[in-house]
């Protein structure tokens, strides 16, 4: 009967697994070891989400490109041409698209992440696995869309004759920042949405508000006052968007103190999201 125990915590392989079932009150441990033990399931859920997402749509995966592309066109027309919003010396279309690629990833993570637990209620109610896997898989599955849109961004830059600076090597870092932020917000909203279905209705509003608090359609140089700059920088997506523009388009938005602030903001959101989610997850089965 001495079988290899899969899903066992690292270092615990071949040792018998013991499940302790006891009342849970208050804050729970994060238990990231268990999460790691379930990484294969995480992979499968990401794969499922990617595979299924566009199955019933006519345009399929091209939505991943069309969504930011059309938004960019609209922004370029209204904000760039008609309103004449400055764009840090690069063509407005590029200026907007470089921001929309990470922003679309974030907005989708917000939307899909927040409903992830409710959408997967049938799984949650019937099988045990670390519940954190569900929103994490949902958010990570957006990476595929991000990569597709990023390739289009590179093509667009080529079209405009703008070549990435050597700082392009920092792009993964800025994406990581976006990812951590998305995860954090996704976790908060996913857990909240189980208790309060109001969340679903608040999401479009929240997304819009957040977008205007992020330099997507305008350059952050518009905010001059150092005090408000600092407050503004607490929004991690500010660091992400500025970072993308700086490393790809060579705008003068090199990450300084602001990026540290953004990183702190992201980590605070993510860690608090993890704990909040873990605190609420024991009620999911009875409530969802």
């Amino acid at each position, binding site marked *: *009967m001495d*079988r290899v*125990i*899969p*899903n066992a915590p690292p270092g615990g392989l071949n040792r*018998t*697994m*013991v*499940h*302790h*079932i*006891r*009342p*849970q009150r208050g804050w729970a441990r994060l238990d990231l070891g268990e999460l790691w033990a379930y990484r*294969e*399931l995480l992979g*499968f859920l990401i*794969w*499922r989400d990617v*595979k*299924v997402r566009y*199955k*019933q749509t006519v345009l399929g995966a091209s939505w991943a490109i069309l969504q930011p592309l059309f938004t960019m066109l609209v922004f370029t027309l209204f904000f760039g041409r008609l309103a004449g919003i400055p764009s840090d010396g690069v063509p407005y279309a590029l200026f907007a698209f470089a921001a929309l690629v990470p922003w679309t990833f974030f907005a989708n993570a917000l939307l899909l992440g927040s409903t992830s637990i409710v959408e997967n209620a*049938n*799984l949650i*109610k*019937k*099988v*045990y*696995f670390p519940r954190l896997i569900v929103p994490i898989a949902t958010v990570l599955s957006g990476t595929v869309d991000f990569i597709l849109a990023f390739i289009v961004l590179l093509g667009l830059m080529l079209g405009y004759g703008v070549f990435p600076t050597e700082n392009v090597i920092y792009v993964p870092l800025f994406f990581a920042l976006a990812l951590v932020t998305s995860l954090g917000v996704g976790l908060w909203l996913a857990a909240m949405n189980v*208790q*309060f*279905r*109001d969340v679903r209705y608040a999401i479009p509003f929240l997304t819009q508000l957040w977008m205007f608090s992020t330099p997507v359609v305008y350059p952050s140089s518009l905010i001059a006052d150092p005090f408000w700059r600092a407050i503004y920088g607490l929004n991690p997506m500010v660091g992400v968007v500025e970072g993308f523009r700086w490393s790809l388009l060579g705008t003068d938005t090199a990450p300084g103190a602001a990026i540290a602030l953004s990183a702190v903001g992201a980590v605070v959101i993510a860690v608090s999201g993890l704990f909040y989610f873990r605190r609420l997850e*024991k009620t999911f*089965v*009875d*409530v969802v």
Partner: protein
Amino acid sequence: MNDVVMRASGLSKEYRIGKVIGTRSIRESVMNSVSAPWRKLSGLVRGQSAAAAGLDESLWALEDISFEIRRGEVVGLIGRNGAGKSTLLKVLSKLTPPTRGEAEIVGRMGSLLEVGTGFHSELTGRENIFLAGSILGMRRDEIRHRFDEIVSFAEVEKFIDTPAKHYSSGMYMRLAFAVAAHLDTEILLVDEVLAVGDTSFQKRCLNKMEEAGRDGRTVIFVSHSMPTITRLCSRAIMLDGGRVQVDGPSAEVVGQYLRSGHGTTAHRTWDGETRRPGNDVVRLCGVRVHDGQLATSEALDIRRPIGIEIDYEVLTPGTALQPGIHVHNDRGDHLFCAGDTTHEARQVPKDPGRYQSIAWIPGNLLSEGVHIVSAAVSTTDPLQVHLFERDAVAFQVIDTMDGDSARGDYGGWISGAVRPLLEWSTARQPVAAG
């Protein structure tokens, strides 16, 4: 080596029912948290106890459940609806934490609370096997290793690369069960998932579960079907009102369950048009077991005929109706099924009205022990089952050892699903000259 793989001590689970469990809006929540302290306070002022002043009423779905299960035991969990079986399974599979008490489970554990968990209709059969397998707790290489076995068990070879949404419901169920059946954990928690598919598939599922038991795996199995419980499980735990009522050998516990009136009894009636099993042609009003003197009886002499009386109401004229019964023993063996084969039952349409059919099971046929009867009313040509009430009534056959039954004067255990009193003749053969 300690052989106890599951130990529960004092497991209790409370559900609040006063408070709305489920979807709340923030407004309600805010309003409640604002007004609750005031209401509690005013309750206290009026002399209510703190608990009574609380807004929530609570329901204990489980109360002080304790048991130990050893490696390789197959344990049936029985009890009527609301007894706490499913809640216990949920707590043991870590889906919801207990309110009090604790349990320790040693070994890799899997739970099958539903057939088709993790299936996605947009994915192909192949993709679903991997997805559902992974969700149930199988490793990727384990699934790959057993893939062909799963496919052939489900008999979906030809459609393995077709999206599951194009499957018939039977195929879907078969594939879903096949994945679940190959979950190879040391401890398995199973909830009624066998109640799917056609009869032949159900039988294969049962065999698969039996195999699991023989392989030395530990299984906890919830079912409403007493024959299945006695066939699969060596031990049964009967729950009632969230507490353990009886815990012991399954045949005994099932017998007690049936006798306690919680499950099936020798006499069942259904009141009210809509609650009666059946359709718009015919509805079942009652089923009764009686001895030769027409008195309802739960304990019957092995030597005497047993009458199974089916009471039904015909609502629509023009259909020939054939009553029938299925009899299982307490080990879950299907002993026989028999219908009224007279010309009247098979060919002559019945007028609306109340009918009573009695089937006589001859004496000296059944074996000792609990027997479970399912009742049916159908039309044979074309075949249509109007009603089928599984495990409608039960009775116990008793061999009194008076010497004139098939037992004779032998006092020990006699095996066999039936115990007919046969006619014997013995003649001495002349030895051939040689």
